[in-house]
């Protein structure tokens, strides 16, 4: 590699690695989760990336989901806003028919940036599992403003909620015991008794 090529490579690497050119991220976490029908699951919408380099001031996002699979029970502020203490958090409006939470937003009050060098959860969203299936959770209308109130370039990534059948509880237990009882009676009639303690079969 010639000195010129080496110099160009070094410049390219430092350009890519520079926080000034890196994006802020807004992600659904965890990216995938499973929940039983009738149960609830809480997801976070987290802001990350190089937020510590620029200082985050305000944020906003919408969240879309499949309303035939899950519903939104509540939206709460995440710990991202907590360090400042003086802030406003707007939980947005839930449109169950459309499967959308619109305009979730938050900002500190006064000229103070959020003291979150590594980012964190801007909001938590609790979903209730309605029916078996998979619902994508998609972020849109995302805005993150820097301490200078400049709009940051954002990369968003959504998530998936898999709703599985509810676990069989007492009913399955009762059915299993009944089946065992019937089986035991049938084997006794045929003259075969399982002797579990002896670890074998004994003929009567």
């Amino acid at each position, binding site marked *: 590699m010639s000195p010129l090529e080496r110099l160009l490579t070094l410049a390219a690497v430092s350009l890519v690695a520079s926080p000034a050119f890196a994006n802020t991220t807004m992600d659904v976490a965890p990216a995938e989760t499973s929940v039983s029908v009738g149960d609830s699951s809480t997801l976070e919408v987290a802001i990350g990336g190089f937020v510590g380099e620029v200082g985050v001031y*305000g944020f906003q996002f919408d969240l879309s989901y499949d309303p035939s699979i899950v519903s939104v029970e509540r939206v709460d502020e995440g710990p991202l806003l907590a360090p400042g203490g003086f802030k406003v958090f*707007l939980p947005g409006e839930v449109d169950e028919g459309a499967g959308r939470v*619109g305009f979730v*937003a938050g*900002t*500190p*009050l*006064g000229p103070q940036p959020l003291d979150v060098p590594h980012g964190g959860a801007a909001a938590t969203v609790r979903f209730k599992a309605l029916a078996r299936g998979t619902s994508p959770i998609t972020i849109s209308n995302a805005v993150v403003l820097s301490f200078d109130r400049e709009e940051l370039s954002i990369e968003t990534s959504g998530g998936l909620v898999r709703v599985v059948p509810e676990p069989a509880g007492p009913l399955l237990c009762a059915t299993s015991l009944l089946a065992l009882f019937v089986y035991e009676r049938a084997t006794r009639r045929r003259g075969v008794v399982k002797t579990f303690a002896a670890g074998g079969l004994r003929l009567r």
Partner: protein
Amino acid sequence: MSVAVEAQLTPGDLNLDGVVDCTDLEIQTLSFGRQSDQPGFDPRADVDQSGLVDVRDLVFVAWRLPATTTCF
């Protein structure tokens, strides 16, 4: 006879009472997410006159509040 009235506008003072306080923020939160053609839209809250009240408008007022303000 004519009288000249000179008004001193304070950025972020949406209700024009001379101070930026929680009542200005409340004007925005009541209109938040509304577009100009929707009920509940308050043009005073649309600071950047984009036709939508969003976080860009919200931070304009929030930034101008004293740092130890508790509104809600």
